């Protein structure tokens, strides 16, 4: 590998000794991942502790009560678990409704923005681009309040699920736009010309050529928009008014002290995330392997 000259230039280093910088880096990685995962592990473990303040040090026995709730022999609820927490369940419903709305808003907006930026070469393109990505770079709370007061001032629309949808859609559409732009830049424009030349109408070009090409990106954009919407707190908190989502409800519950039910929700989130991440990784590796084979 190395040339003789380079070997001479390099400080002599016996081959079999340990490379301390490598060891240090590996130890560092280990500590970093411990830092990332230890708090999450603690959160997960405490969900199974019978102690009604979430803890792992003060262990009062294994229980699933926080996931299921518990009723005594007479049928009275003794321990309130996840299914009995109506506001969490309703919050999840609100979150899903908002996420669905955000997908419906942000995919057409993102796609339109991407088409304008990639296909319409005007002198204003850079300005347009800056404007269209600015929601990503704006603090979430500013986006939340400005949307909330704007719709109330001009359309008498009270803060709620709809304003939250709009506020989230504003910046999630920018993420979708960036994904669509990346895809559109790889498109062979000649295909659309070929279709036109063969007599296709502009609708048919869009439906048979452009849309199928964009389909994978539409799918990933929908997933990303869904996740971003479900997870969002800062923007939602300022735009939701008297209503609530799963995440803002977790937030308001945390203000009043800790409850193991939140740990239970945490466990559900962790399980979902880990499963999805593992599936995603495996799918990606399979695709890479297929590409390498082709």
């Amino acid at each position, binding site marked *: 590998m190395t040339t003789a000259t380079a070997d001479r230039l390099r400080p002599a280093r016996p081959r079999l000794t340990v490379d301390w910088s490598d060891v240090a880096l590996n130890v560092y990685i280990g500590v970093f991942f411990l830092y990332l995962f230890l708090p999450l592990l603690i959160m997960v473990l405490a969900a199974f502790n019978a102690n009604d303040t979430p803890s792992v040090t003060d262990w009062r026995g294994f229980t699933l009560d926080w996931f299921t709730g518990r009723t005594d022999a007479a049928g009275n609820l003794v321990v309130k678990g996840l299914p009995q927490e109506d506001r969490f369940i309703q919050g999840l419903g609100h979150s899903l409704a908002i996420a669905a709305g955000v997908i419906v808003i942000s995919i057409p907006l993102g796609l339109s923005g991407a088409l304008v930026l990639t296909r319409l070469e005007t002198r204003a393109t850079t300005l347009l681009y800056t404007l269209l990505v600015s929601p990503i770079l704006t603090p979430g709370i500013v986006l939340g309040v400005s949307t909330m007061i704007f719709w109330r001032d001009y359309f008498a629309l009270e803060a709620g699920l709809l304003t939250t949808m709009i506020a989230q859609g504003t910046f999630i559409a920018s993420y979708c736009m960036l994904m669509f732009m990346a895809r559109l830049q790889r498109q*062979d424009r*000649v*295909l659309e*010309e*070929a*279709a*036109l*030349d*063969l*007599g*296709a*109408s502009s609708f*048919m070009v869009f439906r*048979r*050529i452009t849309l*199928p*090409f964009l389909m994978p990106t539409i799918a990933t954009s929908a997933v990303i928009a869904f996740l971003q919407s479900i997870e969002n707190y800062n923007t939602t908190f300022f735009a939701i008014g008297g209503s609530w989502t799963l995440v803002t409800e977790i937030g308001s519950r945390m203000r009043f002290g800790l409850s193991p039910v939140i740990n239970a929700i945490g466990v559900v989130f962790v399980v979902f995330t880990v499963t999805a991440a593992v599936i995603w990784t495996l799918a990606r590796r399979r695709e890479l392997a297929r590409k390498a084979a082709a």
Partner: protein
Amino acid sequence: MQGNEVALQDVSMRFGDFVAVHPTDLTIRGGEFFSILGPSGCGKTTILRMISGFLRPSTGRIRIGDGDVTDLGPNRRPTALIFQNLALFPLMTVWENVAFGLEARGVPKAERRRRAEELLELVALPGQADKMPAALSGGQRQRVAVARALAVEPAVLLLDEPLSALDLKLRQHMRAELKAIQRKTGITFVYITHDQGEALTMSDRVAVMNQGRIEQVAATEAIYNRPATPFVATFVGEHNVFRGRVVGVANGHARVETPAGRFVGVNADGLAEHDEAMLFVRPERIALAEGHPEIDNQLDAEVERRDLEGPFVNVFLRAGGRPVVMHLTNVGDAAGRLDGRQRIGFAAEDALVLRAGQLASE
């Protein structure tokens, strides 16, 4: 089926300050194989895109058959274009590709499938209908593109250097096939190329373009034997060029004073005395002149190099400080031993005198 005539009247194209095509009149006859030949950037693709409808000309009208199509979009013209990179739809099967134009015209699926099979038969691709384009070889993809274009039964088929991605052998094979398909269908073919071999072997007539202007439109033989301008003379085939000044004219011939000597050639441009001129001679029309006093133009030249090219020997000489190339037929052994100072010459009928102008190599 008989293809339609394509007529360009005073058509020009400018992009901002840049003039891609100067005002041009051009008539392509119905059912002929017509090539537009020129170096890259000469405006030939622009003309093609104006005929197909992707570009709207800055001035002038375009007529196909009896209809003025200037204001129609590409999807409403009776033309089909075969793109340089073929532009097969990667997410559709071969037959869906071929039948796309029929789908656009609302033909029912069963009928589309039947037509696609027929066309694939025509281009010698039977049994490949359900494959994806990516699974085909370069030559097969070529045929799919041709079938797809023919499916819409165009009056005019436009081809934008479609063979340039193929290797030499396949290219030569496809030339013959394209020519055969054109004969069989009778469609007007407009073929864009920078390869003079392609243009000369396939076409009925050729237009040679340079810097946004058509320099000559003629049958292939005329393009080769009677080039109209210095550019055409040097772009199509090889020519020896002698620059000079006309010192005498008579009987349709002109005598030109050049650094290598005084030569007589056909006065194609009708030059008068004192005009600046260029005299062109094909390398294969130059012969050894030793002992042939009947040869009109003679000169002494120093042999610098010989390249054996099988049937020919290319002899590179220098006369009056200018290079001269001579192609000798490889018969006997005289050519192989040619050396030193030689007397060479060419007939006046084989030399062409044109008004001085731009050469292709410049």
